[in-house]
C-alpha cells in the first residue's frame, strides 16, 4: 500500500517537471526597416516579450508599439498617432509554432515558424524562416521576414507615398532563458 503511494507521488512529481519546458525572453529585439528612394526609415524595439514551450514548440511573442524608437522624434509621434494608432491597438502579437523543434541541433539550426501575426487590429498568417540555437540552456531565435504594410490596414497618405516602402523588412532576435 505504502509503495503504491510512493509510486503515485514520484510519478506525479515527474509529470510536473516534464509536462512543460518554458523559456522566456523579456528584452527581445524586433526592428523594422523601410527603404525608399526618398528616405530610409528604421525603428528598434528592445522590450519584446517572448515565450517558448519546447514540449509543444509553441511560441508567443508580444511587443508594445509605443516601444519602437525612431531617430526622428516627429516620425515616432506620427507612427503612433496616425499610422499604427497605438492608442487603439497598443500591442503587436504573434502566436505560432516552431516546426521540428526537437530535431534542431548545432548543425541543423534552420527551421520555420508558422503562426498568426496581429497588428493594428488585423491578423495575418505568416510563415517565417528562423535560426534556432540552443546553447547552455538558452534558446536563441533570430531571423527576418518581409511584410506588406497594407495587409494590416495601415494607411499611408499620398503626400508621403514615396517616403514609405509598401513592403518592409522585420528583423528579430530573441534570447530565451529557462523560466520558473
Amino acid at each position: 500500500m505504502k509503495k503504491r503511494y510512493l509510486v503515485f507521488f514520484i510519478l506525479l512529481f515527474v509529470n510536473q517537471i516534464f509536462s512543460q519546458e518554458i523559456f522566456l525572453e523579456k528584452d527581445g529585439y524586433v526592428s523594422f526597416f523601410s527603404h525608399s528612394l526618398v528616405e530610409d526609415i528604421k525603428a528598434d524595439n528592445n522590450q519584446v516579450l517572448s515565450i517558448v514551450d519546447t514540449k509543444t514548440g509553441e511560441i508567443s511573442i508580444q511587443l508594445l508599439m509605443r516601444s519602437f524608437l525612431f531617430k526622428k522624434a516627429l516620425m515616432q509621434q506620427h507612427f503612433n498617432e496616425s499610422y499604427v494608432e497605438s492608442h487603439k491597438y497598443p500591442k503587436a502579437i504573434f502566436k505560432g509554432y516552431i516546426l521540428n523543434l526537437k530535431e534542431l541541433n548545432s548543425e541543423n539550426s534552420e527551421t520555420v515558424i508558422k503562426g498568426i501575426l496581429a497588428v493594428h487590429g488585423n491578423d495575418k498568417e505568416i510563415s517565417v524562416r528562423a535560426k534556432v540555437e540552443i546553447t547552455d540552456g538558452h534558446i536563441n531565435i533570430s531571423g527576418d521576414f518581409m511584410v506588406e504594410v497594407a495587409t494590416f490596414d495601415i494607411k499611408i497618405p499620398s503626400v508621403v507615398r514615396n517616403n514609405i516602402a509598401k513592403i518592409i523588412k522585420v528583423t528579430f532576435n530573441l534570447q530565451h532563458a529557462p523560466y520558473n
Partner: protein
Amino acid sequence: MRNLLLYVFIFAFSGHLYSQNLDEILEKESPKKTNDVLGTFNGTRILNGHSIETRDKGILEFMISHRFDRINTGFDQLFGLDDSNIRFGFEYAFSKDLTVALGRSSFEKTFDGYVKYRLLKQKSGEDPFPFSLTLFGSATEETIKNYNPENKPTFKERLVYTSQVLLAKKLNPNVSLQLTPTYIHFNTVPTTDDPNDVYALGFGTRIKISKRVSVNGEYYLTLNSFESVNTKNSIAFGVDIETGGHIFQLVLTNSRSMIEKGFIAETTGDFANGDIHFGFNISRAFQVNKSKYDQKLY
C-alpha cells in the same frame, strides 16, 4: 490493477491541471506601463493662440502665420485678399518640455520672443493623470515708427509681457478642450483710462474629423479691457491639416494680430458684422539635433 489504471489516468491529466497558459505567463511578466497622452492637439497652436503641445527635443519649427484683410471690405479689395499681415517665427525645442522662440510680425512691426514649458502631462495606463499643463511667457516689442521723432518712446516703454497657464484635456481620441487664463502687462497704454494689466480667459477646442484633419475653435474672453479703444473678444474657427512634417491651419478670425497681446487685448473686429480675416498658419518641423535615442546608441 484497477487502482494502477486509475493512477495512470490521474497522471495523464495532472500535467494539464498545473500547466500554465503561455499567454498568462506573458501577461504576468509584461511590465506595467504609464504613457503620456499624445496628440491632444495636432500642433503647437490651436488657431491664434498656443496649445499645450510642444515639439520633441532637437526640433526647430518654422512657423508662417498670415492674416488677410477683412472680408467685408468688399469686391474692390477682393474681400480682403489685397492686404495682409504676416508673422514668421523660429521655435526651437531644447527638450520635449521646453521651447524657446523668436518671431516678427508685420503688424506694427512687432518682435516677439517666448518661452513655453510643459509642466504636467496627461497620462494613461498604470498611473493615469487627468490633464496637461503648459506655462507660457512672452515679451513683445513694437518697433513701428508711428511717433513724433521728438517724442521717441524707449525700448522699455514699448514692451508688453504676456503670461499664460495652458490647461488641456484630451477627452477621447477625437475631442480635446483647453482653458487658458491669461495675464498681459503693458508698460505703456494709450490713455490714463486704459489698464496696464489686462486679464483674459481663453477657451479652445479641437474636434478630429479624420486621422489627420480636425476642426478647431477658439474664444478669448477679456475680463477687463481698454477704454479708449472699442475692443472685442477674439474668436477664431478653423481647420487643421497635418501631413508628414507640415501642419496647415486655415482660420477665420476677427483678430488682425497673430501674437497674444494683439489678438487678446487689441482685437477691434466685430465677427458678426463681417470683420472677418481669412488666414492660415503653416508650420514645418526640422530635426536639427539628434534626439536622445541617437545619443544613447553612440
